Structures are given as C-alpha cells and as structure tokens.
C-alpha cells in the first residue's frame, strides 16, 4: 500500500481504501481502478491524498518541489522563521511542522524574488 498525493495519481492505480469527502460521503469504493474522471472528482472535492494498492515507485511520491537554494539563504530563512515559531509546538506537532516547512519554502521563494 502507499498513500499517494492526488496530483501524483495515474489512471490504472487501484484504490486500497474507499475515498470519502469531508462530510463522510463516499466518493469511490475500495478496489476500484482509477480513471481520469475520478482524479478530477478527487481534486474538486478537496481530496489531497488516497491510499493505493501495491507498491508505487517511491520516486513518484517524493516531494515535487526540490528547494534549490544556496546554503546561506536557506539558513537565513530558517533562522528567521524559527524565531517566528518560537512559541509553537514545532517539535511535537506534525501539522505545525508542515506549516513551518511551507513557510520556509515561501520565504525562500520571496528571497529569490519569485
């Protein structure tokens, strides 16, 4: 099994677990082979990841944004943001960790003038 982000799904993959929307309504049942239309439905109902049968090459699952940045910029961004996050639970909260990761990425984009 593998949890795959919706934007990495390809037709032909098989659902390991049923997909429900946020209210619990069933969108697609377990064991169904995914087609293009399903992926569109997942995206429009805010499904960000689904559970897929079998092994999926890890390469496909890896983060698509590789932060290309020199050491100094990365250090500067992280240092500044660590101060901003000083009173959060950065060590224990996975959600906070992800917010931090996204902030660093955004900060680097800004420093690079993107």
């Amino acid at each position, binding site marked *: 099994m593998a949890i795959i*982000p919706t934007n990495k799904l390809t037709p032909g993959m098989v659902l390991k677990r049923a997909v429900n*929307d*946020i*209210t619990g309504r069933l969108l697609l049942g377990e064991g169904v082979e995914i087609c293009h239309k399903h992926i569109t439905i997942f995206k429009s109902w*805010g499904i*960000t*990841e689904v559970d897929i049968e079998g092994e999926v090459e890890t390469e496909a699952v890896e983060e698509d944004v590789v932060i290309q940045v020199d050491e100094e910029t990365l250090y500067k961004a992280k240092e500044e943001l660590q*101060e*901003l*996050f*000083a*009173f*959060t*639970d950065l060590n224990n*909260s*996975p*959600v*906070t960790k*992800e*917010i*931090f990761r*996204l*902030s660093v990425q*955004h*900060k680097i984009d800004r420093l690079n003038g993107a």
Partner: protein
Amino acid sequence: MSIQLASLISDNLKIFSLPSIFLRLNNAVNDLRSSVTDIGNIISEDQGLTARILKLANSPLYGFPSKIETISKAVLIIGTKQIRDLTLATSIIRVFEGIPENLITMETFWRHSIACGVIARIIAGYRREPNVETFFTAGILHDIGRLIMYAKMPAECRDILSQIAKQPQLLFKVERESLGFNHTDVGGLLLKQWKLPQDLMEAVANHHNPDKALQYPVEAAAVHVADILAHALQLGNSGEKYIPRLSEEAWAKLSFQTSMLPFLFKQGLQHVDIAMQIILPSKK
C-alpha cells in the same frame, strides 16, 4: 468583566459605529417580508459598496462561471445573509479610518486581517460550508479588539509592546497578564454591543481558544487556523510578533489531512492581494 474593559467599549460605541447602510441591510435581512430586490436596492444606494461587492463576486476567489453584472444577481447567488456579512467585511475598514498609526500601520493591520479572512473562507469552501462569507468576515474582524485598544489605551499598549521587545512572549498572553483582558474580549464585546450575529461574535472572541466556542466551533477553529497560516505566510501583522500555538483540537475539528496545508497556502497567497485591492480604500 473589568470596569476598564466595560468602559473601553461603551465609550467607543459613540466613536466607532457601524455604517447606517449596514444597519438597514441587517434589518432588511432579518425581516421576512423583504425581497432580494429590497436588499439589492439598499446596497445600490452606496456606489462604493456596490462596486466592491461586484468586484469581489467576479474575482477568482469566488470563481463563478459567468459574470455577475448586477447587485440583485449577486444577492441572489451569494444569498441575503451572506451579502450582509460581506457588506460588513468590505465596510469595516472605513469605520476605523483615521486612527493614529503610532503603534501599527493600518495597512499592515488590515493585510493580516484580510489574509486571515481569505484563508478562513478557503477553509470553509473546502469543507463545503454553506456560509463561507461568515468565515471571511469573522477572519477580517478577528483582531478588531486590538484596534480599539491601540486607539483608546495607547500608553498601556506601548508598554506591553516594549515589554515584549525586551522579553519575547505572545502578545495576547501579555495583554491578559497586564490588563486582565485581551483583544479577543474587547473584540467579542464590541461585536456584541454592535448586535452582530452570534457566529461572528463567537469566532472573534474565541480565536485564541477555539475549544471555548460552543455554538460555532467550526467557525472559531477555522479563524484560529487561518490566523496561524496568515502569520506563517508573513502577510501583514496586527502587533503579534510570534505565531500562536496551534490548537490540535481545532485542527482536528476541521477534519483536514495535513496534505491539505499546501493547498491552503497556495490559494491563500493567490487571493490575498486581489482581496486587499478591492477591500482596502485606495490611498488618495
């Protein structure tokens, strides 16, 4: 409630009053006999408001498939209660025009507020909430108590801010330690005095402790999370130097996977600037 807090609000009701057009709109919305046309007519009396609502409704944030050209169509599509909240969201900035900007610049303050509103609205959209404008408005109003405090008790606020500059701490905590109340109390009380709907009041009053919102926990949780994300994106600021700690209960209440966060970031960034341009009065 402390005497200081009570007098802070009662003094200010005379100074900071809601636009009369909002009050009439509110009465019309609460009156079962009023029609979509009646409500459209009230809005149309204010050209600036009409333009702001139409611009917003036609912006990518709303993503309606066809152009909304008249206010009555906007009322029909967005809904009467939701139009009322949207009117508040796009008019509130004018209520606080002319506050001395010694402690904070208005643009920075409203940028944070609008970012919070936009993200709260995106959260509501993903959750398929029927009242997305309430989330938007609650986000825009969430730190309003701070404006009252900056305007009416600048010396105390300055002390608190310099205390934090010396020794890092969360502003809303120091507010309570020094004064016995914080900006969420002031904001909640102001909204109550203004007789604004309970959902807005609860979300504003509880955005730092969303588990205390009993009737509207999702609204409060969304504003709590949106506030944190607006901070994390460093979009404006209302005086708080550090990001408040995330309430895991509030996050759980939204029933999002962690993988939803990149979408909230991306869309928040995408829409904040447009919302700013529409809502903030242009500099003369």
